[in-house]
C-alpha cells in the first residue's frame, strides 16, 4: 500500500524533509510508518500524529492511500 507521510515545523527541519511517499507491504500502524520512514531516528517525545487530518494514536492502523502526518505540539492562536 502507498502512504503519504508529512512533517511540519521543527520536526520537518530536524529530519530535513517535508514529505515521504512510502510503499508498505502488509498491515501497519502509524508508529510503523514512522519507523519505516525514519529507521535511524526515534520519534521525538510529544510528537503528535494525524491520519487524513484527524488526530490518532501511534497504534492506529493505516490503509492504502492514507496521509499520515507527524508534528510537534501546536502553538497557534
Amino acid at each position: 500500500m502507498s502512504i503519504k507521510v508529512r512533517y511540519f515545523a521543527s520536526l520537518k527541519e530536524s529530519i530535513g524533509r517535508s514529505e515521504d511517499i512510502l510503499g508498505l507491504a502488509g498491515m501497519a500502524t502509524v508508529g510503523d510508518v514512522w519507523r519505516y520512514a525514519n529507521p535511524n531516528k526515534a520519534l521525538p517525545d510529544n510528537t503528535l500524529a494525524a491520519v487524513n487530518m484527524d488526530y490518532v494514536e501511534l497504534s492506529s492502523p493505516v490503509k492504502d492511500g492514507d496521509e499520515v502526518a507527524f508534528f510537534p505540539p501546536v502553538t497557534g492562536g
Partner: protein
Amino acid sequence: MDIKICSEAFDPWQEIQSHQHSVADIAGKFGATNIFIGTMRDFNEGDDVKGMTLEHYPGMTEKQLGKIVAEALQQWPVIDALVVHRVGDILPNEPIVLVAVWTSHRGDAFDASRYIMEALKSRAPFWKKELLESEVERWLVKNTDGYL
C-alpha cells in the same frame, strides 16, 4: 459560521463587521457578542521579538477548526461564529487570531468563545517560529495555559 485562514494582515474590526452584515437574519436576534483577539507582542520569554512566521497544515487546520466550532455549537446556543487565523510572516502588533461568537445571552457568548480559543490553542495545527532582535530564530515549544 465562517472559518478563514489569512496569509496577509487582517483587520479584526472589518472582519467582524462584514461577517455580521453578511448574516441576514441576525439583526435584532442576538443580545451578546464575545470577541477574542490574539495579537503579536514584541517580547517573549525575556527576549525582544521582531517577527514571527506561522506555519500551518493546510486542510487539517480548517478541518480541526470546523470540528471545534461544531463542538461549541453543540454545547451552547450559538447564533453565529467567526474564526480568523493568520499564517505566514507576522510583525509585532498584528492580529494573529480572531474568535467572535454571537448568542442571545452573555454567559453563552463568554463560554463558547473561550472554549473555541482554548481548543484552537491545543488542537489547531499551527506552529510559531519567532525571529528575535538578536537574529536568532526559535520555534515555540508549546502553548501555555493562558495565564503565562
